[in-house]
Structures are given as structure tokens and as C-alpha cells.
């Protein structure tokens, strides 16, 4: 664990409560009028020069949304959200689709501060210093501001572009797959997203192609009172492979901000998609003021035989997290995986987990979830594993561990298991433990200060999941874990 020292340095360099990405960028923006109506939906669609079918799709979602109720079954509580008091579209004024040099320098500077190079030559410098090549799509408020390495990817036949462009350039692909995993009517937040989504990433990896580099999207909410509703659609055609990383940050604000994203993954025969997230939205201050409300629907469809979808997430931010990346194991012999580290501190509330829906024969899934609660936070794992009547030979292994730091926080595990096929084998293991005074004393007797000791113990606890992350992300995640737990030992 070579990053321990760095972790510790970073912890030291921060004051309590200081969220590293909490800055705000002053830029001119263009917004839709506040509030939500059919006009808002039409405004967004017009801004994106969308074809008529896309507008109809959105309007249908909007009308449906009006008839739905916000879900209340999760173990989170928050004041009612006034959906009419939000902006649903905010875009930097300068044109950004032409070339990287047309992007507002303030935005480039913002991404640089976040450690994400948008200029390809800067990204290439990363290679010289030992990093691997990563293509980035950067989404700033409601629009995608840059996508790097597009040309190199297109040589391999890989399409990687903002979804708003894909709607115009690849309408057949979008029509075929959009909403095919998360239907428009799926749930309150997904339906809202379907009506007002403004941008996000689109990825198509053709038959037999192994995507030559990691793809990633960095989401940034900048503007005040603005909801972010991005939509990601990734399709791996037969025998294709892609690894995709997602990162998120936002400024520190006293008011809550809404983020309701939808991610759909489709894996055809023998295809594999690996989707990793490091979610670091602003969590609010120590008294629970401000922070992002994160209501996200992520689902992968193992549509083809022998396909595989793997979710890995490190959740450290957001005031409220409501998120269940799931796999539909439709193809025979398909595999689903979910590896999660969810950390809550301060007044954060996390209700997260996964669904593994076994439909095909000999499908298998694996769930490793590590929840860490500190401060006054609540951390819930909610999971569903089901085997359909025809899912002969379905197998699942679930392991849910919770670690408590201090005595004011809570950890909860809510697993649902249903099997309609007598040959299915489901295993569930769960533990809850506390960082003991004895462990802290032992580590401190060897010279580690309380924060170093906590970081070390927690890193040990989450090791199984960290190992699943791509290398650069693992190091970043490790640092993030230490920073998130800052001030959690007294």
C-alpha cells in the first residue's frame, strides 16, 4: 500500500471540513428558465437540435413523470425537493463543440484543478510519466465540453461522444438501445431524467473490438440551483470489451443540489463491460448543510450469452445517496459483479446496493460491499438477488461488511433474496465491526498517529474492492478514503 504515506500527507494538508473540489468557476452561462414544464423539455430538446422522435420520447417521459410519486422506501430523510425551483439546463456560453481551443479557458482551468487534462497533448504527457492513456468526456453542468482521443478511438471503430451528438449522428443506435435497459417508466428519478437529460456519454464498441484505452467521463456541477441529469449509454457488441471510469465533483454550496443520472449498459454475446465510479460530490458541511442529493439509476443488461458486466464503485460524497447499480443476467452463462465501497461521515445518508436478476441458465453473480460509517452518518446496504423460474444453475455469492467508526453512526444491511428455481445457489455473508480501541492503540504504539492508523485500518478493510479498480483510480480512491474520514477519530 504505497499510497498510505501520500494519503496521510493529504489528510494533514486539509483542514477539517475542507472539501478539495468545492471551488466555483465564474463563467457566463445560458440557462433554461427556472422550473419544469413541457416548455422546459422543448427548450432543452431545441438547444440540442434534436430530431422530432427524441422530443416525443422526452415529452412522453415528462407526462408519465407527472403521474408518479417520489419513492420513500429508502432509509434516507431530506426536506421535500421543489422541482419548480430548479434550473434544468445550464450551459457555458462560448461554443465548445468546435475544438479544444474554443473552450472557455476557465473551464479548462477547472478540469486542470480536478487533475483531468482535456488537452490531448497534456494527457499524453501523462504517458511519459508512466500513466496509461485515458480518453475523457468532460461534462460541465448540462453539456459535454470536451471529448479527447476521439480520432484515435474512431480508428478502432469505437464511438465515444456526447450523447447529444450521438442522437444526431447515430440515431439508429440510440433509438435501438436508449431506454432498453432502464425504461422511461422505470422509476420517478429515471423518468425525470428521461424528460430533461441534457448530456452524458455515448459509447459503442463494435463486434470483436477491445477498446484500446480506458474511457472516462468527469461530471462537474458548477451552477447554483441547477440539477444535473446526465445520461450514459454504453453498448459492447459481440465479443467487445470496454472499461469505463466515471468521476464526479461539485462546488460547496449551502443549498442542496439535485443529481439524477441514468446509466444504461448493454453487453451482447461474449462482451464485457467494466464500469468504475469514484463519486465525490460535495457531501455537505459537518452540520449537514448543503450537499448533493444523488438519485441515480444504473443498470446493465447482460443481453448476450457469456457476457459480463462489472460495477465497481467508491462512494464518498453526496449528502444523500440513492443508488443501486444492477445487472440483468439475461444471456445464458452471463456474469454480473458489484464491488462497492461506500463511506459516510458527518451527516451523510447512504442507501446503496445492487440488484442481480438471474434470468438465463448458469448465470452467476458476485457482490462484495464494504460500508464504512463515521460521524453521525447512516449507511445502508440494500440488495436484491433473484432467480427467475428458468434460471437453472444460477449462483450468487454476496458478502456485505460494515465498519463503524465512533458510536453515533449507523450501519444497516437489507438483503432481499428470492429464488423461483430449485437449482439456484445463493450465499450471503455479512459482518458488522468497529475499529476497536485496541487496534488503534496497537497501531499508535508503532508510531502511527490517529489519522494514519484509521486510514491504514480502513484501507485494509476495503482492500478486496480497491483491487478491482483500475490502477490510477485505486490510488485516487485510497486518498479519497482517508480524506473522507478526516476528523472521524476523536
Amino acid at each position, binding site marked *: *500500500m504505497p499510497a*498510505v*504515506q501520500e494519503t*496521510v500527507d493529504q489528510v494533514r494538508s486539509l483542514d477539517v471540513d475542507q472539501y478539495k473540489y468545492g471551488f466555483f468557476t465564474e463563467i457566463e452561462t445560458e440557462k433554461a428558465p427556472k422550473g419544469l414544464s413541457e416548455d422546459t423539455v422543448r427548450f432543452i430538446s431545441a438547444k440540442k437540435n434534436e430530431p422530432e422522435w427524441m422530443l416525443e420520447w422526452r415529452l412522453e417521459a415528462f407526462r408519465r413523470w407527472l403521474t408518479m410519486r417520489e419513492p420513500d422506501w429508502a432509509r434516507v430523510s431530506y426536506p421535500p425537493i421543489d422541482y419548480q425551483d430548479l434550473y434544468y439546463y445550464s450551459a457555458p456560453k462560448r461554443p465548445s463543440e468546435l475544438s479544444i481551443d474554443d473552450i472557455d479557458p476557465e473551464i479548462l482551468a477547472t478540469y486542470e484543478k480536478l487533475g483531468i487534462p482535456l488537452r490531448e497533448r497534456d494527457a499524453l504527457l501523462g504517458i511519459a510519466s508512466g500513466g496509461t492513456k485515458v480518453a475523457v468526456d468532460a461534462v460541465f453542468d448540462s453539456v459535454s465540453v470536451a471529448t479527447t482521443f476521439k480520432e484515435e478511438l474512431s480508428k478502432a471503430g469505437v464511438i465515444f461522444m456526447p450523447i447529444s451528438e450521438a442522437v444526431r449522428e447515430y440515431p439508429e443506435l440510440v433509438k435501438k438501445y436508449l431506454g432498453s435497459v432502464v425504461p422511461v417508466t422505470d422509476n420517478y428519478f429515471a423518468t425525470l431524467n428521461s424528460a430533461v437529460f441534457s448530456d452524458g456519454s455515448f459509447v459503442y464498441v463494435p463486434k470483436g473490438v477491445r477498446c484500446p484505452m480506458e474511457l472516462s467521463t468527469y461530471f462537474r456541477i458548477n451552477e447554483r440551483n441547477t440539477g444535473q441529469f446526465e445520461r450514459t449509454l454504453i453498448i459492447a457488441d459481440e465479443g467487445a470489451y470496454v472499461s469505463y471510469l466515471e468521476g464526479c465533483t461539485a462546488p460547496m454550496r449551502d443549498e442542496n443540489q439535485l443529481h439524477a443520472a441514468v446509466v444504461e449498459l448493454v453487453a451482447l454475446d461474449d462482451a464485457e463491460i467494466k464500469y468504475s465510479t469514484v463519486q465525490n460530490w460535495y457531501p455537505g458541511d459537518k452540520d449537514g448543510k448543503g450537499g448533493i442529493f444523488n438519485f441515480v439509476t444504473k443498470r446493465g443488461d447482460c443481453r448476450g450469452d457469456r457476457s459480463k458486466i462489472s460495477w465497481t464503485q467508491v462512494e464518498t460524497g453526496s449528502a444523500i445517496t440513492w443508488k443501486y447499480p444492477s445487472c440483468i443476467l439475461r444471456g445464458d452463462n452471463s456474469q454480473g459483479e458489484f464491488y462497492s465501497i461506500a463511506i459516510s461521515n458527518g451527516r451523510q445518508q447512504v442507501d446503496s446496493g445492487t440488484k442481480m436478476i438471474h434470468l438465463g441458465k448458469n448465470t452467476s453473480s458476485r457482490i462484495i460491499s464494504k460500508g464504512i460509517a463515521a460521524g453521525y452518518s447512516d449507511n445502508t446496504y440494500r440488495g436484491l438477488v433473484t432467480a427467475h423460474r428458468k434460471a437453472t444453475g444460477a449462483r450468487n455469492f454476496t458478502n456485505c461488511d460494515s465498519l463503524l467508526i465512533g458510536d453515533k453512526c449507523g450501519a444497516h444491511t437489507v438483503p432481499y433474496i428470492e429464488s423461483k428455481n430449485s437449482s439456484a445457489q445463493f450465499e450471503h455473508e455479512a459482518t458488522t465491526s468497529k475499529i*476497536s*480501541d*485496541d*487496534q488503534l*492503540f*496497537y*497501531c*499508535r*504504539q*508503532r*508510531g*502511527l*498517529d*490517529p489519522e*494514519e492508523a484509521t486510514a*491504514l*485500518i480502513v*484501507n*485494509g*478493510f*476495503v*482492500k*478486496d474492492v480497491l483491487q478491482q479498480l483500475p490502477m490510477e483510480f485505486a490510488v485516487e480512491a485510497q486518498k479519497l478514503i482517508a480524506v473522507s474520514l478526516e476528523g472521524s477519530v476523536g
Partner: protein
Amino acid sequence: MALLDIDNLHAKIDGEHGKEILKGLSLKVNPGEVHAIMGPNGSGKSTLSYILAGKEDYEVTDGTVTLDGEDLLEMEIDERAAKGVFLAFQYPVEVPGVATMTFLRASLNAQRKKRGEAEVSTPDFLRLVKDKAAHLGINQDMLRRGVNVGFSGGEKKRAEILQMAILEPKLCVLDETDSGLDIDALKVVSEGVNALRSPDRAMIVITHYQRLLNHIVPDFVHVMNKGRIVRSGGKELALELEANGYAEYQQDAA
């Protein structure tokens, strides 16, 4: 000046009705010396080791402890470690998921940093561990496993001595290091400890049994009972205790 100077130390278990455990204990330890502390169960031996290390479950009500003339009781736990106080635990604690190797390195670097020294380089560290581990019969597999996780009693104690060898403390406190060891393991551990004896390092060896002191031969033996040292002598005192037991001291103090 003594390396460690304990004067009239009184301490109780933390809390309103905490029981007093140390009742006026005094002890001077010079560099290079090995002191054995023996005594019956409940005499306060382990408490003494915890108080020297700074465990927070105790409250010192009277007396002083200095290390190299500095007030030890004022220092944080990790500060004491960086100043050279090492406690070999009677029951070493498990830290799952943290490889022993990682733990050793994090500890060493944390101490070096507190002392204003540079971090140890990877090749130097690997060489250091390889060398010290070999002497204690610790293989690569053990170094890769989580700290003390799934270790046998003997492996745990050997791992403690390895940590001691890597951290090179000034004052080693060994709390019943012989408990749970068979004869062969006792020998390996004792040899490891003896290899660390040096003119500028002192040791306090806490034990119930003479057996350990056949291998780690002390310069002084102290008998502890009811929170203080009731008799001190040379290494022959341990043999006498082995023959006669602690009964006479328990009566004396009553």
C-alpha cells in the same frame, strides 16, 4: 541519567470508581540494562507496560515517569513510540487486510517522519526486512498476510520481535512474551531478543516464569506485588522465586 526513571507512580483504572492498581512504584533503568519484572497475577505488571506505552484506559494520579529526562506521561502514544518506546504485546492485535509488510513500513516511516528523518527507500526496506525476518524464521507468506491474522501464538510473538528489530527502539517492554510459546518457539523468540541487546538499548521483560529468563538473562530481577516493587536483586532472585513461589511476598504486603 537513567534512560527510564519511574518515581512513586500511582495509577488507577480510568473512571470515577476506577480501582487503584499501581501504588507507588519506582524503578530506574539505564541504557544497556535488562530488567525482569516478575510477580503474581494481578500485581500490576501489565498495567505498568500499558502506562509506559500510554494506553488511555488508565489515569496516573501521582508520581513521575521520564524518558531521557523528558516527561513521558505528557507525550501522545505515537510520540512515545517515535522516541523509542516499544511494547511487545502479550496479545498482539489483528489488523485484517493490512499486509504485515505494509504495516512495518508505515510504522517505520511514521516514526522516522516524527523524528525529522527521511523515509526509508524501498530497496533498503526490503533488504532490512528480509535480513531480520530470516533470523526469526518468518517467511514471505507471513509478511504478505494481514497483521496477526490467522497467525499461531508463536507466529504472533515472532512477528512482534520482528517489528521490534525493524523499529530499533531504545526501550523495549516485553509483556509476557513467553506466554503461549512451546520450547522451540521460546528459543527462537529469545534469540531474537538477545540479538537486540546492545549498550544503548534497555529492556523490561515482564514474565511469570523463570523459564524465559534462562534464555534472556536479566541484569536485575524485581518482584512486583500489589502495585509496587517489593524486592529487587540479581538474576539469582528469579531462581529463588521459581523454587519458593510468590507466597511470602503476598503475605508481606498484606
